[in-house]
């Protein structure tokens, strides 16, 4: 008897142990997959902070995320007279900066040469479009002062204090700096880590000493907003694109909700001539790629929908939001989803309302619509996501001016803006990450609807 009991507990222990290891293994697998699926984004987001996201080897280490540099950026910006988080170089202020080098044995110890360079903002086409005053023409560099020397095993560690004054009446939003040291002298550390080290270590280069903490961390993200101006209106392009995308998405969500539920209800519950043919045609349309129909649609919009727009004093609908919206008031798949949903609802309430003498319109608006809330929720998310991410159709009908671009087409234009031989990946990645943010936030908040929407749209076939 006792032996048997021992045996059972042995087996129980084994089962328990097995269950735990099983769970562990599952978590391990799930975690590995998350790295695969989310890691790409996180790595992209992390690299969008870097000065040069395509430096080799690609590392997770990012100067912009080191607290030491945050403190440095804060102190320097305060010295410049601005706030610590968003800095500037105000009139009459002095910025004091420390840097340490290692001079190997046999190299003469001379202080670094300080240069405030005249640097164009931005790169590629963006650089050509901005003209401005250079801070270099106004500031005064005070001779470099040695503040410490420690002798180490094979040389000396020397620290210098570099002071730059803005004696002019003007305020500047940036202070770039280059330090030049003799060959073989090693850069060790500075109040703020340099953005680049060039010419085999001889030049350490800073984009902006007085940026403040936030612009220091999100350097590329600020560039996206600050370096793209419209040639026609002078407004910031990236902000305009975000606004455009929001505007079009919201309008299309509203029209889709309204018209899809109307059409879906008619298809699901009302009898009319040609209903079955229409339904087959809708299914057919969902299989046909947009590239099949776009030429005619392009022409229709070019001619203002058979000249109808002339009645309202308009002309061509190309390059207009009206054109973009009117050609996609409601998608066939949205109608399909609503039809499926309405068909799944019980008929009793509707029938009793009809006996009470309610009209079709009353039944639709008073009874069916309130019941359709869950489907409308999923449809809202699905439509918003679809319109926000839409690429092909805006590409076809919106070509100029850049003010009219949606975010997706705007991002595509970054490939020209930030390319000169090689890509300046910093702002491109930053722009991509920023434009994905609204959808990701929406997704995290309304996760349930996304998943429902996916299974809804899955039904469509």
């Amino acid at each position, binding site marked *: 008897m006792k032996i048997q009991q021992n045996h059972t507990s042995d087996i129980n222990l084994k089962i328990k142990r*097995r269950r735990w*290891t099983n*769970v*562990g293994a*599952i978590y391990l*697998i799930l975690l590995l*997959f*998350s790295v695969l*699926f989310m890691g*790409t*984004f996180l790595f*992209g987001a992390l690299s969008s902070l870097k000065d040069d996201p*395509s430096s080799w*080897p*690609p590392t997770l280490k990012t100067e912009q995320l080191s607290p030491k540099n945050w403190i440095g950026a804060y102190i320097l910006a305060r010295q410049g007279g601005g706030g610590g988080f968003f800095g500037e170089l105000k009139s009459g202020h002095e910025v004091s900066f420390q840097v340490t080098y290692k001079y190997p044995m046999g190299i003469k110890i001379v202080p670094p040469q300080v240069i405030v360079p005249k640097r164009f903002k931005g790169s590629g086409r963006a650089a050509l479009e901005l003209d401005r005053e250079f801070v270099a023409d106004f500031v005064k560099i005070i001779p470099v002062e040695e503040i410490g020397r420690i002798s180490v095993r094979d040389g000396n560690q020397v620290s210098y204090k570099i002071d730059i004054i803005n004696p002019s009446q003007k305020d500047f939003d940036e202070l770039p700096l280059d330090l030049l040291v003799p060959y073989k002298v090693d850069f060790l550390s500075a109040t703020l880590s340099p953005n680049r080290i060039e010419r085999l270590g001889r030049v350490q280069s800073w984009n902006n000493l007085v940026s403040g903490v936030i612009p220091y961390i999100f350097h590329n993200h600020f560039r996206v907003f600050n370096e793209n101006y419209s040639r026609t209106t002078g407004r910031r392009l990236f902000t305009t694109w975000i606004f455009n995308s929001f505007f079009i998405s919201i309008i299309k969500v509203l029209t889709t909700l309204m*018209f899809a539920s109307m*059409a879906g209800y*008619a*298809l699901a519950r009302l009898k*009319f001539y040609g209903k079955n043919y*229409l339904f087959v045609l809708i*299914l057919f349309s969902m*299989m046909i*790629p947009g*590239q*099949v*129909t*776009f*030429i*005619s*649609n392009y022409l*229709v919009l070019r001619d203002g*929908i058979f000249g109808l727009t002339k009645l309202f004093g308009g002309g061509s609908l190309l390059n207009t939001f009206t054109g973009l919206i009117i050609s996609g*008031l*409601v998608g*066939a798949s949205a*109608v399909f989803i609503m039809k499926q949903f309405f068909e799944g609802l019980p008929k009793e309430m509707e029938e009793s309302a009809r006996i009470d003498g309610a009209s*079709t*319109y009353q039944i639709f608006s008073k009874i069916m619509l309130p019941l359709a809330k869950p489907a409308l929720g999923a449809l809202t998310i699905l439509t918003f996501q679809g319109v926000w*991410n839409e*690429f092909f159709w805006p*590409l*076809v009908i919106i070509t100029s001016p850049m003010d009219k671009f949606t975010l997706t087409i705007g991002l*595509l234009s970054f*490939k020209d803006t930030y390319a000169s031989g090689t*890509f300046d990946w910093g702002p*491109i*990645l930053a722009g*991509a990450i920023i*434009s*994905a943010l609204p*959808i*990701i936030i929406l*997704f*995290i908040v309304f996760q349930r609807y996304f998943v429902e929407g*996916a*299974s809804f749209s*899955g*039904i469509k*076939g």
Partner: protein
Amino acid sequence: MENRWSSLKEKTAPYVLLSPFLFGFIIFFSYAFIRSLYFSFTDYDLFSVPNWVGINNYINLFKERLFTTALKNSLTFAIIVTTLQTIFALLLAVAMNQKIKGIRFFRTAYYMPSVTSSIVITLIFMWMFQRRGVINYLLTLLRQHGLTIGVFLTLLTGIQLLLVVTEKIRGRPVEYLEPSYIVISIIFAFIVTYVLKDFGIIKLAEVKAVDIFWLNTREKVPSWAGPLAFPRPLGAIMILNIWTTVPTFMILYLAGLQGIPKVLYEAAEVDGAKGWQKFWYITIPQLKHITFLVVTLGLIGTLQMFDQVKIIGSQAPLESTITLAYYVYDSAFPGASAPKVGMASAAAVILALLTLTIVLIQKKFSGEGRDLRD
């Protein structure tokens, strides 16, 4: 009078409710589709009056090398991506179909690539596929640590076999993949590999940085496949596309998995079925209609692949990435030369026919008829 008015209102109600949808549907789909058909038999160029040219456009298309390349690329892309994404989605769904804590977090994490736009994903991938990019770096790391990984895996298998065989000799029932033993094997293999490495017995291989051109190349992979090989940039887009679509289809499979009655598995267990047997004889047949759906959606989606080709643009040679959808766009809106709307429309019609044919064949082949209607 009142009565007649309300009866008229009732009779017209379906059409009134449908009218906003029908407005768009008729102009921007039906009319457009018919017009594309018509254009495909003309020499229209957006500006002058179209002339009827019969089936000349279709004949000329198949004489044009760029078109046949696009056709081949589209088909290769559709077949490979659909196959792989279906398999991965199914496996991932099976792995996700667990009642454990935090599964929601993982679902969120996995679904992320599917909600963001093609431009965002493609830009990030282009950055990773640069010559000095993340993908090449990871490959370099893999080559450097190849020996270490090999030693680790050999040790892992060895220890596991040893443990299982000893148990078997003692006459205890044990499976080859007994999880608790795997954990022990992993720990031991890790420690031994670490020690070997620490003593310098295993060294990092001296390799050059991997220097694969992912985008700017005309090379075809796999090199042994002859005429079946596809351009490497297209392969890069395949990786990208599988990565973004797998999560969506995983959600569909997950819903299907949750609908399989538990009784089936329990009955199989009573009959002594093993894990993989249950998967093969219960899970897969039960998910048949979802698989049909996933394959259909996959084919429709992959055949119209356009965005990635446009976004990668001049980063890769055109014939290495061009698809049918892009061919249509490029012929209708070529940068410098005159628009060839006739040719573009003919290619568009072929694309539509191709999609329909493949979906119909698929439907017949898998013997599923009702799904499209339900």
